[in-house]
């Protein structure tokens, strides 16, 4: 196990050295990433410059949910965001070269392009969350501290599962990238706001059907000590780990099924 991790550490370090050979592009990516996520926060603030309360939530509460969601997403994106490139790996036969190595397929693909350039987002999202925590009125208890640390981690796990499950479609349908992007980025945007802002059927599908309510919304309510305006019980704030693990299980099954049905490309 430790041995395997050391191999991946070597592979990831090699990837880092590869990226370093394109230094300008690296810094450009790093910068543009921060600007893009910066625009998202601006959108939240613009809404609150017009209305004092959004679907029952104040600006500080909303920014807290935004910060939790952003941390979860950035962390997931750092490790598995690269899986959205799977359609290229399938099309150009990279997957064949991965399958002939004595290592797992998914970790190898992830190690092919670790998002060092996305590290800027992590720093930025931590900053947003810190500001939100300072401004929000939270009654701190040891359990809430644990919840605060666990929420982005399990949220990240949930997003990782989502990234992987949606990208699996590429094994059959090489041009599936747009669908996968719509679902993952759509999911991120969905979790950035209180779910009370969405229409009824839309909320049911994304929040409960797909499980996005448990990334930031319910843990966020538990942190704030607020009752759910939708009438959900308090314990919903604590089930994120269960939801994340279930999502992980589904993603693993999808992935295994996908690899089995991989059909490679000509020659």
């Amino acid at each position, binding site marked *: 196990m430790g*041995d395997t991790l050391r191999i991946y550490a070597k592979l990831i370090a*090699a990837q880092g050295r*590869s*990226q370093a050979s394109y230094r300008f592009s690296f810094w450009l990516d790093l910068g543009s990433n921060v600007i893009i996520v910066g625009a998202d926060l601006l959108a939240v603030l613009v809404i609150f410059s017009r209305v004092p309360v959004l679907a029952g939530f104040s600006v500080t509460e909303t920014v807290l949910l935004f910060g939790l969601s952003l941390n979860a997403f950035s962390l997931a994106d750092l490790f598995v965001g690269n899986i959205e490139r799977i359609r290229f790996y399938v099309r150009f036969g990279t997957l064949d*070269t991965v*399958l002939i190595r*004595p*290592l797992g397929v998914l970790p190898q693909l992830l190690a092919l392009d670790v998002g060092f350039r996305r590290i800027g987002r992590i720093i930025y999202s931590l900053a947003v969350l810190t500001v939100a925590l300072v401004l929000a009125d939270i009654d701190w208890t040891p359990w809430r501290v644990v919840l605060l640390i666990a929420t982005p981690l399990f949220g990240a796990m949930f997003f990782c599962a989502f990234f992987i499950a949606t990208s699996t479609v590429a094994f059959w349908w090489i041009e599936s990238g747009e669908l996968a992007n719509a679902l993952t980025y759509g999911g991120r945007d969905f979790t950035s706001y209180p779910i009370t802002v969405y229409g009824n059927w839309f909320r049911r599908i994304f929040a409960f059907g797909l499980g996005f309510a448990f990334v930031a919304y319910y843990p966020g309510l538990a942190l704030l000590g607020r009752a759910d305006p939708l009438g959900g019980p308090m314990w919903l704030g604590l089930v994120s780990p269960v939801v994340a693990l279930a999502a992980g299980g589904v993603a693993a099954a999808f992935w295994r099924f996908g690899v*089995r049905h991989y059909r490679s490309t000509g*020659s």
Partner: protein
Amino acid sequence: MKIIETEELKKTFTVHIKAGRFRRKRTTVAAVDGVSLSIQRGEMVGYLGPNGAGKSTTLKMLTGVLQPSGGLVSVCGLTPVAQRIKLARRIGVVFGQRSTLWWDLPLRDSFELLRHVYRVPPAEHAARLRTCRDLLDLDSFADTPVRQLSLGQRMRGELTTALLHGPEILFLDEPTIGLDIVSKQAVRGFLAELGERGDTTIVLTTHDLADIERLCRRIIVIDHGRVVHDGSIDALHARYGSRRRVIVDLDAPLETPIDVPGVELESSTGTRLVFAVDGSASVGPLVSQLTASGTLRDLTIAEPEIEDVIARLYQQAAVRSLG
């Protein structure tokens, strides 16, 4: 001892064919359609066939990349897809058309990384690398990033990486495709030497028949997913009636025509005659009759071209599949 064995190996793909503006018809295409092979340890086998015959698909099923749709396959006593990781340690694979090297790093780094990936003890790794370095002349470009290497240099690197973990079988999918003559010869020479040592089984697909003639005692020809020939090159010539040619230059036209069983006069232009000799017939009687005529100036014997034989084989297979 058998190291590769397949029985009625099949791979079918479902394809959607446009039928009308919105409708698409689903059909099943068999890329590999019942291939049964048995390869012994230490053999060097050429796997031939026209484009789309199913060569690469077979190779991918043998290496654990693709799951067969039917039939049995066993490589090194393992089931390739189910035991992919175990098998990967015991085989080496070179894809002529895609690189397994780290594109932006010096070639040397790829060698070092694969030492970790395959968990090869440093001493073993160093010994194998030394052999490859000498035989393939790697030192002059080992520090160059892979993306800056020429195709020939890159292929030498690919060969090395496929061998550093001491595989029992080396699979090569078109290893000489696109290489210049010098690089081709370097690759062939290296493979020939590897094959002669006898501890590595080599299976290669190619379109370059010179590769096969130089390297493989046994060739398997596949077409439309089925094996159409499995045996030595000589057996192939015998089976498809390849004929040697005897080209003769005379001082003066012959007075009496040559009459030797199994020999046919193919063309005659002035004092140059071309005879075709059946695979089973000897050239001896023809030569002695020519010598006796007293006008013989020069004589050349041309061996049958394997290209001709293979082309005929492909055509026959195509005709069969039409009929």
